[in-house]
């Protein structure tokens, strides 16, 4: 037993602390990234971009954001839709006020604006926890959507009540609007989300991530060993909202192209992203991707199977789909709170022992 552990130990701490210390994991990630960056762009079309890859990647970014707050720091939030709206409206206002501003900067600034809004709505977390905090963030959700709907300034006084993303280029390539090429949109979002995921992974394995998890697991002990709850919780709200805001920015700017506050950023969005991290795995960056993939892909697969395959009515198929989602969420909440990510890990552990389980 001891020697097995000793055998796994790396000859220096740097390699033990590498992002993927196990060689097989490293290979797996490199292959997935290779396919995503090199092969997919050649084959991707409008349907695959708009129906599958963009929603998957953008929701994955939002799920990472919520997971940092809820999965890592233990602070429940039902305000995700509202914070995505802040990101989207920031993007709209920035890009219409400063058309020359590089779209990458616009997305980052939208994230930063959302971060500051998130901090404000995170202040109650210093006093309240759990259910009460959830209700407070729910209030944020409704307030934000109401605000964007109420004041014409946010919509540039558009009488239709919608915001529209104007066409924008980066480095001479059209990136937004209906005329932008699908592979360009896909690659842009892919690069953005990959870098953000990497940064998130770095944060959670360092000092800040440990202080979040300490607050999550036992806030009093964390405080007594010198972690400041105020600092830990508010940075969690800030970083989380930064991610969710960027997701909202991409959601509106690249994927939808046009949005109406109540429809695009309603409470359903908040729940959808929450379901993603519950199913994918609380406290896991990989889980955020798995959850987003599952929730964006499942309806499509189910529809193909039930409507096109079995010939059920669309409405019936939708009901079955929602029921299944509910059952799955209950299953994960009760049986496996660490979601698909944990199941994946268990599978890997089994694989490591195979074919000689003891």
């Amino acid at each position: 037993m001891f020697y097995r552990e000793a055998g796994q130990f790396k000859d220096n701490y740097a390699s033990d602390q590498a992002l993927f210390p196990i060689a097989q994991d490293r290979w797996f990630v490199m292959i997935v990234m290779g396919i995503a960056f090199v092969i997919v762009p050649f084959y991707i079309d409008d349907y695959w971009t708009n129906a599958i890859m963009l929603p998957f990647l953008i929701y994955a970014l939002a799920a990472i954001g919520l997971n940092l707050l809820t999965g890592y720091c233990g602070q429940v939030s039902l305000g995700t839709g509202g914070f995505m709206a802040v990101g989207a409206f920031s993007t709209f206002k920035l890009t219409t006020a400063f058309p020359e501003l590089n779209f990458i900067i616009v997305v980052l600034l939208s994230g930063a604006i959302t971060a500051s809004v998130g901090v404000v709505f995170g202040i109650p977390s210093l006093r309240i926890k759990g259910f009460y905090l959830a209700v407070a963030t729910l209030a944020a959700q409704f307030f934000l959507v109401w605000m964007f709907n109420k004041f014409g300034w946010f919509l540039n006084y558009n009488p239709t009540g919608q915001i529209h993303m104007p066409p924008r280029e980066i480095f001479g390539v059209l990136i937004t609007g209906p005329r932008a090429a699908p592979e360009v949109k896909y690659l842009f979002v892919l690069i953005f989300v990959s870098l953000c995921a990497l940064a998130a992974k770095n944060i959670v394995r360092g000092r800040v991530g440990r202080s979040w998890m300490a607050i999550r697991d036992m806030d009093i002990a964390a405080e007594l060993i010198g972690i400041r709850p105020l600092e830990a919780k508010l940075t969690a709200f800030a970083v989380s909202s930064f991610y969710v805001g960027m997701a909202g920015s991409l959601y509106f700017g690249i994927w939808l192209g046009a949005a109406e506050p109540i429809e695009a950023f309603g409470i359903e969005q908040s729940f959808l992203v929450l379901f993603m991290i519950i199913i994918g795995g609380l406290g896991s960056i990989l889980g955020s991707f798995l959850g987003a993939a599952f929730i964006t892909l499942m309806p499509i697969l189910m529809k193909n199977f039930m409507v096109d395959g079995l010939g059920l009515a669309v409405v019936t198929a939708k009901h079955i789909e929602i029921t299944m989602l509910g059952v799955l969420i209950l299953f994960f909440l009760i049986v496996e709170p660490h979601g698909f990510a944990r199941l994946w890990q268990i599978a890997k552990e089994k694989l490591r022992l195979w074919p000689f389980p003891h």
Partner: protein
Amino acid sequence: MDVQRKFGDPILEVNDISLSFGGVTALENVSFDVLEGEVRAIIGPNGAGKSSMLNVINGFYHPQQGMITYKGETRKQMRPHHAASRGIARTFQNIALFKGMSTLDNIMTGRNTKMKKNLFWQALHVGPAKQEELEHREYVEHVIDFLEIQAIRKTPVGRLPYGMQKRVELGRALAAEPELLLLDEPMAGMNLEEKEDMCRFVLDVNDQFGTTIALIEHDMGVVMDISDRVVVLDYGKKIADGTPDEVRSNQDVIEAYLGVVQDDELAASQNN
């Protein structure tokens, strides 16, 4: 034994501390000091106010009355963050580890107040942030070696047996390189072998790192063996203070113990 010659000046003095919760008085005019480099035990029956005393020292409870002097600085009350960053670390009576984190990460949290690189550098995880993480990892590995817990480095602490959890908790406190280490019943609930290990660690910490230790312990044999001086609390009041020998023969202490917990060991040690 001349205590003053073996040890340095007081690192901590609590003066006339009173603490109550609503109508319940937990501490009443308690004063004592802890000298640099000594092992100071706090004993007393259940509910005597021992844990409350440690909570006052590291700023979790704020006494209604009294003064605390730590490293020459006198305050009415400590603040947890201030205490931690000034070199006070502790373990808890009921294990307070971070259940979802590995042994390594738990112990790394002990170095939190010493790590300074900001969020931006951490997100990039290059250069200074990576360097900082490595330096602290190296220190934590010394602690892991010292406590002989190499084999459970990557195990989530929730899966560890009780005795091991206590050891990891000690590791988290040691990782902070404390000058004053507060241990709240570090051996409670352990079997004999685990107790012996823990005693050895406590003495080694005191010896090798020169760390001052204030510990609460119920096992009289242990207290008499490892502590230099003992404070006895009963119903929130200090009833005795001195070397183990002095305390053992104190009439009030015998009564408090025989009256409340019927501590056989104390009685036995009386007969020696």
